[in-house]
């Protein structure tokens, strides 16, 4: 793998909270166009890793290089979002008082400055894009509903839709199927695979059946570092992984 094909390089990142090491010299390489599943027991540092990549948390040491040579640890959240990194949160966070449509409208890639949004009119192109995303996330009939009134699974999808609207190069998706029914889980796996045709994705998930369904390379985190990496069969046969999952 040459450097050119690397989209994200997490290089020796350490994060401590009051002396507790949430990430411990974590390193991880993601190729362009890759989808990666990240698993690990509770408190392994999966969400913290996303916090670091998206600029929410500044690491004590280490770098996060995006693309050729952008060090994300020097940027803040809006800058990183503008670079093309989108994030779905573990707990679905949509703009509850707004309609499904407006949630997508606000997420659509475009000028984010007040001087633009103050005068912005919805364009036909924006409408087309939103309609397209509504189809993809299966919320077309719910477009006028208040986002706060959606079911948990629908909110998860809306949030994925908002990610798509941002047109990011890299999507970070934290536990997308938590609280979903089996059918919804299956549809979500399908949706992510579809998204992955054009974009790179990192998915954090506990649901093993879901990770298996994705069929991608898996990174196992434990106590803030990588414990094992490889295919789902490889990591589930790894005795250290078995111990971590069974021994807790």
């Amino acid at each position, binding site marked *: 793998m040459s450097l050119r094909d690397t989209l994200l390089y997490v290089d020796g990142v350490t994060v401590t909270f009051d002396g507790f090491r949430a990430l411990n010299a974590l390193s991880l390489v993601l190729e362009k166009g890759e989808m990666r599943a990240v698993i690990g027991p509770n408190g392994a540092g999966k969400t913290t890793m996303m916090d670091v990549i998206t600029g929410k948390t500044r690491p004590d040491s280490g770098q996060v290089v995006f693309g050729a040579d952008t060090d994300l640890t020097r940027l803040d959240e*809006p800058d990183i*979002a503008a670079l093309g990194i*989108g994030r779905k949160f573990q707990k679905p966070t949509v*703009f*509850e008082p*707004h309609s499904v449509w407006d949630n997508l409208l606000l997420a659509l890639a475009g000028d984010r*400055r007040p001087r633009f949004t103050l005068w912005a009119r919805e364009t036909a192109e924006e409408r087309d894009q939103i309609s397209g995303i509504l189809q993809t996330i299966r919320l077309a*009939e719910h477009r006028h*509903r208040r986002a706060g009134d959606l079911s948990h699974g629908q909110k998860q999808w809306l949030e994925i839709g908002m990610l798509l609207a941002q047109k990011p190069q890299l999507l970070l998706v934290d536990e997308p199927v938590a609280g979903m029914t089996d059918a919804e889980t299956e549809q979500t796996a399908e949706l992510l695979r579809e998204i992955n045709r054009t974009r790179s994705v990192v998915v954090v998930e506990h649901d093993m059946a879901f990770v298996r369904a994705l069929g991608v390379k898996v990174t196992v985190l434990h106590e803030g570092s990588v414990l094992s990496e490889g295919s789902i069969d490889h990591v589930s046969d790894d005795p250290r992984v078995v111990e971590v999952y069974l021994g807790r």
Partner: protein
Amino acid sequence: MSRLSISVTLALVLGIALVMAVLNLALPEGAALHVPTYAVSLAGKYLSYAMLAVAVDLVWGFAGILSLGHAAFFALGGYAMGMYLMRQIGTRGVYGNALLPDFMVFLNWKSLPWYWHGFDNAGFAILMVLVVPGLLALVFGWLAFRSRVTGVYLSIITQALTYALLLAFFRNDMGFGGNNGLTDFKDMFAIPLHADATRSGLMVATAVLLCAELLVARYVVTSRFGKVLIAVRDTESRTRFLGYRPEAYKLFVFVLSAVMAGIGGALYVPQVGIINPGEFSPANSIEAVIWVAVGGRGTLVGAVLGAVLVNFGKTILTGALPELWLFALGALFILVTLLLPGGILGLLSRRRARPAPTTPATEPAE
């Protein structure tokens, strides 16, 4: 804040203001339907308070900035207007000094402080009514929002801001008339301020500017900017991950709101005939928040309703039992918070806007 409720409010505000002005000017004093001039000015005072309330609702209701110092912007606009009105007195002061206002002569000052220059020009004074509150809000907001000061901490420093201004304006050597403030105004735009026509004109002008303020505020909150603002209010950190800079949104709306409050203050002063440091008192800012809470936060129209109703109540109660007013206000706030979280407007629209149940699986497609 539906289009209907805004239209109804605009029509009511303008209609009542015009009718009052006509009944004041066209009918002789003894006539049954004659509206006395003091009532006209009282209405004008309520309307300028309503301008402050709409400004507070804009930042509190739509950006989640609970400003407990908004009366400071109102008072600064008032002082800018007061300085102009002082200059309009000319040689008609007690000391007959053409160069200096009475209080400066009294303090033995020999020349006009530099910051009083230009205030004999109406255009300059009006510009200052906008610029001074706007600039203070810009500097204050830039510092506060950039450092991500939010919630209670932000409320506390806004209180500190207005309190600091209160203390500063109390000082005689500040050059704003100290404790007594600015008063004894004679003319405005070279027209006698105490003439009935001026009074009615000012009241109607306040009504018109309140309506303009409502329209601007409504435009802002229903624009895409406003949608971002509401998103910032509820889930600020989420908007950052979408690439928005919440601090820029808050700063814009904070400055806009301060300018609106300043205009309200500038209209207030000629109608009540005085501006003194008491207008900076922290309690005034808190009262403005209560008006908004009573009328219904985040509705704009509710702010107008709350400001007018509470101040009407205040006029009546302070006439009859002045010592009870603060208790009544406190009780009102507690009652509204506990029983009417949406204010009066929330009560009116409760049946229409009942939130849909959160079990949408069975909901029919629209």
